[in-house]
């Protein structure tokens, strides 16, 4: 297993998998911007059905894609419909009554639009994450001269999370083995310091050594770093990215201008 457990990435060799991570990142950003740019619920729905779904099918990650949306988008959408359907400010057009609550049409259409916007935002990024290994994304960014410090921080954080989660479990067991009872809300509140204290203190005190190790391995030395691996890119992808970026900028400009006016 070469994947990092923490990242949702799936292995595969489809066209979408092989695209440069930068192309997929640009796509996720552009499709989100475009979705928010038009006030009509059919537009984000069209983007989702015409672009995101086919891409997920093509990459053979449809099941995971839908599963992730079910986990993360459905709850947000449900809350959205309840909150805005019943409590949308200054809405009058009542379409149904549930006891003292009144479901109003303005609220429902607003909820529908917003939920679809969020669907596109989440879908775009899920597609990127499902088809891209974090290592490839980081390598691609470092080829684009993104600061090595930034790359380091993100890469290390991604990798330390599972280690620290395991450690949290160990600490929990260690304190229970010293007779700590973790039952009920009060018990859990009391257990917080004995769990969190060792977790954070241990993690922080390691930092001094790690910084020393990095510096002796030349991190931050002024010479230009090289890279062991390269991320394939192509002229087609470069122009596609430029076009998408232009598209996003136009969408934003038109909107901001419209809003300000």
């Amino acid at each position, binding site marked *: 297993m070469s994947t990092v457990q923490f990242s949702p990435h799936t292995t595969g060799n489809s066209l979408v998998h092989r695209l440069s991570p930068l192309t997929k990142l640009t796509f996720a950003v552009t499709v989100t911007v475009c979705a928010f740019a038009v006030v009509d619920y059919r537009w984000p729905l069209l983007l989702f059905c015409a672009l995101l779904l086919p891409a997920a099918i093509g990459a053979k990650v449809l099941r995971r894609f839908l599963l992730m949306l079910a986990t993360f988008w459905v709850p947000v959408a449900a809350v959205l419909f309840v909150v805005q359907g019943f409590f949308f400010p200054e809405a009058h057009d009542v379409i149904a009554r549930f006891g003292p609550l009144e479901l109003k049409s303005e609220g429902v259409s607003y909820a529908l639009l917003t939920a679809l916007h969020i669907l596109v935002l989440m879908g775009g990024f899920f597609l990127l994450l499902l088809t891209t290994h974090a290592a490839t994304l980081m390598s691609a960014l470092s080829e684009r001269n993104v600061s090595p410090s930034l790359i380091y921080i993100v890469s290390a954080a991604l990798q330390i999370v599972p280690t620290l989660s395991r450690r949290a479990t160990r600490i929990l*067991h*260690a*304190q229970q*083995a*010293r007779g*700590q009872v973790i039952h009920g809300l009060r018990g859990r509140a009391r257990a917080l310091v004995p769990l969190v*204290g060792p977790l954070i*203190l*241990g993690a922080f*005190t390691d930092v001094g050594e790690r910084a020393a190790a990095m510096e002796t391995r030349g991190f931050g030395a002024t010479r230009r770093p090289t890279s062991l691996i390269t991320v394939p890119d192509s002229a087609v992808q470069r122009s596609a990215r430029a076009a998408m970026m232009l598209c996003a900028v136009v969408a934003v400009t038109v909107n901001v201008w419209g809003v300000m006016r």
Partner: protein
Amino acid sequence: MIVRIDSLTFRYPNGTTALDEVSFSVSAGERVAIVGPNGAGKSTLARHLVGIERPASGTIEIAGRRTDGLGIAELARTVGFVFQNPDDQLHAASVTKEVEFGPRNLRFPPARRKELVESALRRTGLAQSRDAHPHHLSLGERKRVALASVLAMDTPVVVLDEPTTGQDHASVVLLGKLVDDLGADGRTVLAITHDMDFCAEHFDRVIVLEDGGISWDGPVDAWLAQAADTAGQAFELPQMTRLGRRLGWEGSVSTVTGFLEHLAPGADPAPAVSTAP
């Protein structure tokens, strides 16, 4: 029998068998070392004793009670577990408070608690650093604080996971004496260790785990006598054992005292000159 394990089997979530039909019993006051190559199931076995892992099949009885229905915190009254990494448990603002955490959880009356804490601090040589913040101490000292915090719970069974790793000579000597004393007090000590010299000098009995099963259970010298030379790849055999073999001796010796006794019986009657036996 304070600990009785019968046909204990355990599988990891991914299906690999970590322990396969392991059975043994330990009586009160026994000092048992559990040894074996990395990944043989030593830690998994130890985690079963404190209730962190639950057996797939088989039973564990501690002080006459089946552990099935007991939580980790309930088992803590009978089994004290000293984890390998002390930083996994140190959280209090002073050494004294840290050591008091266990007895307080177990609801010992204040006078008894104080007595237990004092005795644990004395035995681990920490009386001087009682007010220090545990995280401001050295690794060796932190390991001793973790040890003291378990001793203070006054459990009949104490389980130690790699107690000598990261410890300097003085601490190892102190630890060895502590293991001897606990045994003399009638408390049972089980220790996972890879330090064969430490094992030979302070334990009456060794349980060797290999591939999830027990390949030896009995006196240390008898095991070393029959252990093949290839065992030296997985275990760094005691220095005296290797010397005895080099001299072509039959049987096996594992400690300096045993070696001298074999060399010239009766010539070394009072070996207590050095702290290393």
